[in-house]
């Protein structure tokens, strides 16, 4: 069964450094998402991406964040200058087309900012 993959599974970085989290969505999916889950808190929407542009973003997704689909398979989340409060589990998700299609989630990348 096709699945969403994410790399790395765990990333440790120093505050102020740039990180890039990578995701490979399911191949025939058209909508892509990033969510995050701070330890002990709920899963929060960050951004959705469709047709090579951001379709919606939350207030969390400020100028420090960016997303890109550099080729036909990868979908990346970049955090330009990490802060301690960016420490969280970051999930990538994709869905095929309509709102009723299932969003499939990757296993997540645990980001630790020191």
């Amino acid at each position: 069964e096709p699945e969403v993959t994410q790399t790395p599974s765990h990333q440790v970085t120093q505050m102020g450094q740039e990180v890039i989290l990578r995701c490979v969505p399911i191949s025939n999916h058209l909508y892509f998402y990033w969510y995050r889950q701070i330890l002990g808190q709920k899963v929060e929407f960050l951004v959705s991406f469709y047709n090579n542009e951001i379709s919606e973003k939350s207030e969390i997704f400020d100028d420090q964040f960016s997303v890109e689909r550099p080729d036909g398979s990868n979908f990346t989340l970049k955090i330009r200058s990490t802060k301690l409060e960016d420490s969280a589990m970051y999930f990538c998700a994709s869905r095929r087309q309509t709102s009723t299609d299932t969003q499939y989630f990757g296993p997540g990348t645990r980001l630790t900012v020191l």
Partner: protein
Amino acid sequence: AQSVTQPDIHITVSEGASLELRCNYSYGATPYLFWYVQSPGQGLQLLLKYFSGDTLVQGIKGFEAEFKRSQSSFNLRKPSVHWSDAAEYFCAVVGTTDSWGKLQFGAGTQVVVTP
């Protein structure tokens, strides 16, 4: 404001006993409703979803959920839990007019299964 509430942060259940997890939502119109499960070290896996029609929805792993419009609820049930059901369970919604389909999650319910 739109919200999803899971009143129980933590539930302990004996193996073989029944399980019910509560979910209430506050939305302008009935949203699309989902239950996801997150096992330790795993991503989120969809258990079931409700869009319209029959209010009792069957999902994977023996789970079912019942939509009750009058109570704005979408509770998840399993008649007999297995040790492998120990996980965190998330209720989530998507607004029916939200063409981008972002999921809004509840806070989750941690389920512990005892022998």
